[in-house]
């Protein structure tokens, strides 16, 4: 009986890893399109795009070394590994521990390899965007760590699985604070509005998109999929934080309810990001630290609240 349930959970997880990233990306695009009075592509369009990219011929820069394609493959492997181990979607099979520092620094490793890949091709935009990415990433690092560390502090474990499963808390405010701080940090991490406009065609303003300009065909498919997966994981973690803030929802409920709640939460987070991106204006590059400061401030409040909760 346990085995069948475990097998079902594994099946659910693997199907989610393949399908959910595409749908979530498509959902954000759909929301943005509707808010601009456009009909927009169907939500599953990113999945079709992936299939299309896999079939396309690849153009490779003459100056690119093995590192360029290796980094895309490695990034996707890291993203899949994190998707399997981290509690971004519920319910989940038992996949062992997922340390929060490992979690965040594996994302940092992904970024490192994206940056190396960007500098490898000899395009003038790649290194330029890589320098921006590096600037952003070290600014946002404290916010991302503190928001999750505050939860770990109360759970007395840095294992995210423990934080999100065993933890039955009345501290709903803490969950909301951590979730919000992590979501704001994720927007920076993912180079989305208001730091970077993912829909722009202007290479000179891009952060993430300029780093992958040289990728094409199958290589681009890997990059796009890894990025969509990263987006789903980061938004999924925020969604799980918000879900845990609802009293009683994530405790002692059946896997079906967990599954519905997990997917709904993730879609709601993605939908709100879509609304936010339609209404907001891209910040001046000099104002980016101010936005990151919001995220850091919320994360600090969460940490203080966690410390307080710990002493009580």
């Amino acid at each position: 009986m346990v085995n069948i349930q475990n097998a079902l959970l594994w099946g659910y997880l693997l199907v989610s890893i393949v399908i959910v990233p595409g749908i979530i990306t498509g959902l954000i695009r759909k929301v943005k399109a509707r808010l601009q009075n456009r009909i927009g592509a169907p939500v599953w369009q990113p999945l079709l795009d992936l299939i299309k990219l896999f079939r396309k011929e690849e153009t490779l820069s003459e100056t690119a070394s093995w590192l360029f394609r290796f980094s895309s493959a490695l990034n996707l492997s890291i993203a899949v590994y994190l998707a399997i181990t981290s509690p971004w979607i519920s319910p989940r099979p038992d996949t062992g521990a997922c340390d929060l520092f490992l979690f965040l620094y594996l994302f940092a490793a992904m970024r490192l390899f994206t940056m190396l890949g960007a500098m490898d091709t000899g395009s003038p935009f790649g290194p330029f965007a890589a320098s921006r990415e590096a600037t952003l990433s070290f600014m946002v690092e404290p916010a991302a760590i503190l928001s999750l560390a505050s939860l770990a502090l109360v759970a007395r474990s840095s294992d995210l699985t423990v934080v999100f499963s065993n933890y039955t808390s009345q501290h709903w405010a803490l969950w909301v604070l951590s979730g919000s701080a992590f979501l704001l940090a994720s927007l920076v991490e993912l180079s989305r509005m208001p730091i970077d406009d993912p829909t722009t065609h202007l290479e000179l303003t891009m952060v993430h998109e300029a780093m992958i300009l040289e990728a094409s065909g199958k290589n681009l498919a890997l990059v796009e999929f890894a990025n969509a997966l990263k987006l789903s994981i980061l938004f999924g973690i925020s969604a799980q934080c918000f879900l845990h803030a609802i009293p009683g929802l994530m405790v002692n409920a059946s896997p079906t309810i967990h599954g519905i709640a997990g997917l709904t939460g993730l879609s709601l987070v993605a939908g709100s990001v879509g609304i936010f991106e339609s209404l907001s204006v891209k910040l001046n590059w000099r104002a980016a630290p101010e936005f990151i400061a919001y995220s850091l401030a919320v994360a600090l409040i969460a940490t203080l609240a966690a410390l307080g909760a710990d002493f009580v």
Partner: protein
Amino acid sequence: MKLEVLPLKLEERTTVVKEALDAGDRLGLITSIDGGQLLTLLLSPQMHTVTCFQTPIEDPVYHSITSLVPQAHWFERTTMDMFGLLPQGHPRLKRTHLHEPYAFEGAPLCNDVRDVDAHAYQFFDVEGEGIYEIPVGPIHAGIIEPGHFRFSCYGEIILNLEIRLGYIHRGVEKRLTEVPCHQARFVAEAAASDMPVANALAHVTAMESLLDFVLPGSCQFLRTAALEIERIAMHLSDLGGLAGDIGFLAISSSMARLRGLALRMGELLTGNRLMRGYICIGGVSMHSSSESRRELIKVAEQLKQQLEPVIDLYLANQVAIDRMEGIGKISCSLAREFGLVGVAARSSGISYDCRRYWSHALFPGEDFEISVEQTGDVFARAKVRIREIKSSLQLLMKLLQEPHAGPDWVPLPEELPRNSSAVGIVESHRGELIHLIITDHQGKIQRYCIKDPSVNNWTALAIAVRNNLVADFPLCNKSFSLSYSGHDL
């Protein structure tokens, strides 16, 4: 406006031009007819007069006036490319049109085979630790025209921008001397395809003055309406582009929708959304029924109503304003020195609008307010555009309410007068557009010269982005909204 070509000696040229400019005149353009002379067009807005000086040149070398009159710099470079006339002492003499692949068999518009030096283009070199060069274009990410931008950056800050154009030189000016003059309007319109009305109007204004013909008010009234509709549509498109560049998607898509209304007005008036082929010598090519005029007024009112909330939303967003304020500044003195035109000049405090000074369509008879801002930044240019949309709408509604009765078209003689010249100056949505026509002793067009407003303003863009962030370049670029094909011709 009919022109009289006055002779001017080469030795006196510098002094005469300098004195005229100091007295408040503008340098219209510098060009040549066949490489044996220099033409200098001076515009005096206060006196409403245009003076054309012809300076004979035997040796293809002359003294550059750029160091005294900076606004001459681009004209002198283009004249070198097209006629092989070498301006001696030009501080930054580089080619504008002739690229390396061009087979150098002499200057394209020059009569005698003149040896042009086929040296490779040298970009301005900025050196120092941490200086980074970004080449952008000529093929751009958006589906736009080609142009090459060479940025020298220090970190995220632009130290220098050099713009290289000329990738789509199609020989428009030469072609205009070859086609029958009653069909030339189609070529003239294509000089810059996002301002067909302005180009066609400048063309017919020059042609009709060559023929010494004054059209009845009814034709001019329709042309005025078309010109204003084009201005509204293009300003809306530019504002939407500005919003898009700062990621303000809601405004960007609303502006695209509103531009659709403006294009609808164009369709109701001319039967064609982009109003091509409408303005012709002797009037306009299509009759618009009173029914479609009534519909036109309705659409104009609709546009006016729907525009307000979008503009309010745009200007109520503090982040959007922060993105535009203080970015890409051009001071008033700089704008004057480089002879900027159009929105770029008016947002730097120069109150120059051709509609006030030069006769084209119903202007300068129609009354309207010139929109001027003082700050000279991206926001000022956006504000000037917003105010111009409003004033153009108002003017259009007023015109449509009291239509001029009369014919749409009157037949004009086919023969052009001999040895004469005329100029048409039009305020397009980009600014001062000049078409200069010179006929030879047989009454054939010997030289057709177009001065697109972008020619004046491209340099301003290069200057405006200095010391700004690289990420703000697209915003500055959009705020100037310059034409590649209008420059390249």
